[in-house]
């Protein structure tokens, strides 16, 4: 086989493998991802499906009940009905009322039940004042 041809075949094989891997990656990413929803959308969401909830903790709604944390969230843009949330597991340091959070979980009887240790609190913005959102 002449070297030119050999190189071409090698290139095609390499590209083929790369394309296959890329397709696998793309395929799994769509099935492995969890849909992000805002609290107002979750109020009507079907139970049993896992969602990433992104919302804002209602100020003054945070209650500790033993190991469980109960609070309410609203859409990030504010407004709309608030959604009750229960969660247990680690609470990041910046968590508090008024903060934006991301939590994975599912709906159960009108309450969003967070998966253990999935609570992410957005880092306190260095650009907002810390005294006005207590």
């Amino acid at each position, binding site marked *: 086989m002449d070297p030119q041809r050999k190189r071409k075949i090698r290139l095609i094989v390499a590209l083929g493998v790369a394309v296959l891997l890329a397709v696998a990656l793309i395929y799994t990413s769509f099935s492995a*991802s969890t*849909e992000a929803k805002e609290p107002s959308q979750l109020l009507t969401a079907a139970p049993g499906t896992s969602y990433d909830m992104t919302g804002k903790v209602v100020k003054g709604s945070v209650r500790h009940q033993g*190991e469980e944390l109960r609070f309410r969230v609203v859409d990030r843009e504010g407004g709309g009905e608030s959604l009750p949330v229960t969660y247990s597991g680690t609470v990041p*340091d910046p968590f508090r009322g008024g903060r934006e959070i991301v939590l994975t979980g599912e709906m159960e009887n009108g309450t969003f039940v967070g998966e253990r240790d999935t609570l992410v609190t957005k*880092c306190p913005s260095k650009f907002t004042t810390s005294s006005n959102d207590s």
Partner: protein
Amino acid sequence: MTASPGFFALVLAFLTMVAAVVAALLGRNGDERWVLVSRRAVYAACGLLTFCVVLIEIAFATDNFSYKIVQEHSSIETPNFYKLAAMWSSQEGSLLLWAWVLSIASSLALYSTRNKLREIVPYATAVMAGIASFFTGLMLFAGGVNPFDKLPAPAPTDGIGLNPLLQHPSMMIHPPMLYSGYVAFTIPFAFAIGALITRKIDASWIRATRRFALIAWTFLGFGLLLGARWSYTELGWGGYWAWDPVENAALMPWLIGTAFLHSIMVQEKRGMLKVWNACLIVATFSLALLGTFLVRSGVLQSIHAFGDSTVGPYILGLIAVVLVGSTVLIVSRLDDLRTPKRIDSLVSREAVFIVNNLLLVALCATIFWGTFFPLISEFFTGTKSSLAAPWFDRYTTPLAILLVLFTGIGPLLAWRRVSWATAKRVFVVPTIAAAAVGVALALFTDALHKPWAFFLFVFAAFALVGIGQEFWRGAAARRKLRGGSMGSALIAIVSRNRRRYGGYIVHVGVAVLLIGIAASSSFQTKRDVDLRPGQSAVIDGRKVTYVRPTAKVDKLAFTAGALLRVQKGEESFTLHPTRNFYRPTGVPGASGIANYFAGESDSNIGLKAGIAKDFWAANQPNIAGLQHHAKAADEGFAKCIRGGAGVPPQCRTIGAVMRAALANPRLRPQALARIEELQLKTAEQIAASYVAEGAPTTFRVIVNPLVTWMWIGGLISLAGALIAIWPARRSRRTPVGAAEAELEALKEAKYREIRDAELDHAAGKLSDEDFALLDAELRKEAVEILDGVNGNGSNGHANGASERDAPERSTEPV
């Protein structure tokens, strides 16, 4: 907007940078005077931006709250060290930092190339100054991000303060490190663009900027490491990496930068991969800009997305210009970039570099896809979906394992070609060592339960032993030639071949770091337990006892801690994790005690670090009781001031003081101080009752095997990078002109290649026949370069163009 000296200096810096662009473009055809003007304009702009930074720092240091930036990010109570570092916690401050660091890096690059690369430099200057004027202009024109913006008079007496979470030593160095890394990649990018425009696409631009790429890479890597460390010790979470978009944004240019640092060696030594290198540096720089953009834009859900920003769209525009412009440029220069050279053998260092490049690019592409998946899925399916850490782990783990294998294989192979016999000889010891480690792990540990981690350990053992063998053989070869002790021979080979052995040390560090990551992520024990004082739990064979609660309070924070005793047999130690609840600053005395628990909080974890295991503990006190007490105290205070029947006599005095203060503003500070004092006393009582009550506390306890090696590995890599960056001794003869300097550099590079081959031969990496062939090739190439050098010497340096053509001409078969 008031015209302060700082504002004026910033405007002047912007104009000077624009002037540098214009002058550089006027000097593009070799008019030395314009080139000189442009270079000096960059120096001047660097001076002006330094002046701006100094002014802002003085404003922070002297609590000048008439500046918006100072009022919003500092306060009287902010510790001095953090006052100076508060500049880059603001958006305008970080833009200033970007522009300032870029002006320094550009000045250094222009100074070091003042006698070199005469054709490329004007265009490179235009690119660097263009990007600097973009960032300087952003501060002036984007609105709301001018660091010299003043607040309307009268100036506030105190500022809001720096977020306590950010008041951590590593947090203060972390942002400037990352920014410096992002910024320094501008230099190789600018010279690459210059080389493409002028079609001077040999390795000269790479030689001139390689060190900047390495510095950028080192800064970025160290910044990432500091961020991980901060997360591990400060966030009360126990992890160091979360695949957060902004973390990924810093990791991606670092990965592509790693690929670039390897593949440019192939271009330097073999003249291949020119298109690839041009693409890599464009990608690295674009990803660095993307990192800056992601931090500032909030398009992706990230714990780092710092609110809405006005500069996001502009940076996105710049990325688009960079990508489109570079692509057009590369495509139009494809004919010049192509090279007829081919890889001699698949068993050679350049072949391994290509594999490592593909792995790094694949890793980056995977992370890119995962990071931007929310946008991608929204585009295709209409719903925003995101990918979590397990998805990232699934794809990055195998790639990382292969990479660690290649960090071991690469150093074992010589350039150009290696015969199978030689390859076998250098592979024997590392392979046996890796096999031995594998068997030992399988027999004595449960590493086989986690196959990925097991493979990583085995491959890392291969890499470590392989690189150790390299050092050993190199030193032995030197001893054979020069004698001396093993230690002095080691020092000699490292200091004489800094790039090579510095690089190997980086490989050692990366292998050690990955061992730390694999062990701590696969074999960690993590438990959350609720304990009352006196109770204990058994975690990973250790008895953990909650001895007693502690509490401390001052004007700034309420600190609830827990004393833990950890026992296992004879070994016993205590840990004291605490959690600080910060009161919002800037309004002393005006807020109640309950505000302690409405503000920020952070953790000081209890950590017993060890070579084999870290014992990590954080407490999450149940603050419901505390909040209840604080609220009651605040209510009592309010009642006290209102007066009426049954209130103690002291209430009447404080009530009188407050009423007086309301009527007479001049008495207010006194009254506030009184209240403050009273609140502090009450808070101290609450602290005492917290200790006395001994409420149950939730503890997170993590036993992390080998995690210390992650930090040690990072530091080893840093040391290796510094060795590789350290400048080599220069030849004493100073070259006369730019053309001669280029040839001189070429000669130096070829000599180094010959020395490398000799070292490889002496160390047994090249067989006698392979070495003879390679040496002959290299010497022939060196002679051709020398012909060029001598030719120049006799011609003088009047006829620039033909001189520079000399080496190319002489490469033609004679």
